[in-house]
C-alpha cells in the first residue's frame, strides 16, 4: 500500500507530531527515508517495543531502555539502525525525540 507522507504531520526535526496518526505503512516509508529498507523482524521487535512503551509513557524510550527491554544488544541496535539509532527509532516509531540521557 502506498502512503503519502505529505499528509502526515512532522515537526521541524522530522519527528511525527501525532503518534496516533502512525501506521506500519508510515513506518516503512519513514524507514526508507532514513535509509533502512526493508524492515526485518528485529527492526519490528524494536519498533513494537517503542510503540508500546512510547504510547504508555508518552515518551520515546532511550537506547538503554530499548536494549534492556527487548534483549537486543547495543551492537545489534546500532547495526539495525546505523548512524543514530536513538533518533531513527523514535522517528520510525512515530514518537517524539527520546527524553532521558541514557
Amino acid at each position: 500500500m502506498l502512503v503519502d507522507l505529505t499528509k502526515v504531520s512532522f515537526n521541524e526535526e522530522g519527528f511525527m507530531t501525532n503518534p496516533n496518526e502512525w501506521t506500519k505503512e508510515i513506518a516503512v516509508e519513514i524507514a526508507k527515508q532514513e535509509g533502512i529498507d526493508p524492515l526485518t523482524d528485529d527492526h519490528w521487535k524494536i519498533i513494537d517495543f517503542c510503540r508500546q512503551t512510547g504510547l504508555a509513557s508518552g515518551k520515546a524510550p532511550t537506547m538503554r531502555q530499548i536494549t534492556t527491554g527487548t534483549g537486543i544488544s547495543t551492537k545489534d541496535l546500532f547495526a539495525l539502525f546505523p548512524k543514530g539509532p536513538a533518533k531513527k527509532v523514535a522517528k520510525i516509531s512515530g514518537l517524539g525525540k527520546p527524553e532521558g540521557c541514557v
Partner: protein
Amino acid sequence: MAAENRKIAFICSKGDIDMAYPALIMGWAALGNGIEVIIFFTFWGLDLVTKKRVDHLEIAPIANTSFKISMMGLPTGNLGIPSILGIIPGMTAFASWFLKKEIKKQGVPTVREYIEMLHDGGAKLYGCKMTVDMFGIKKDDFLPQVDAVVTASDFMDMTEGAEIIFI
C-alpha cells in the same frame, strides 16, 4: 551542521567518579544522534578503562566545595562536609558509595557498562601512550574495549575536523 558530518572527541584526564561520567554520557548521546565519537584516556582518565580501577573509582569530599550534606536528602541547605571531617579515614569511601548509589538509582549504568556500550555503539577508545609508558600499564591491564594506545600526534591526526572536549 548535519549529524552525519559531525565528529566529537573527548579527552578524559580525570579518574574521579564525577569526572568520569560526562564524556560517557555525552559520548553515548552523540552515538545515538549519529555523531562519530573518539575518546582519548590520559593520566588519571586511564582509570576508566583499566580493569583493576574501573570498578573502584572514587570521589573525595575533601576540598570539594559542591559536596553538600543536603545531597543526602537532609534539609541542611548549603552546609558542606567540613574539610576537617573529610580527612577522617573512610570519608572518601563513604562519599563514593553514596554517589554510586545515587547514580544507580537514576538508572545510569556503571562506568564499566558504559565503556562496553560505547564500544559496541562504535565509539573509538584510545589510551595515551606517554601515560601508559609512565605508569607501566600493559595491554592486558586494559578493558578489552580499548582499541589502541596512541600518541598525542596520532590523536591530532584522527581528530581532524572534530569538536574536542577536554575533561
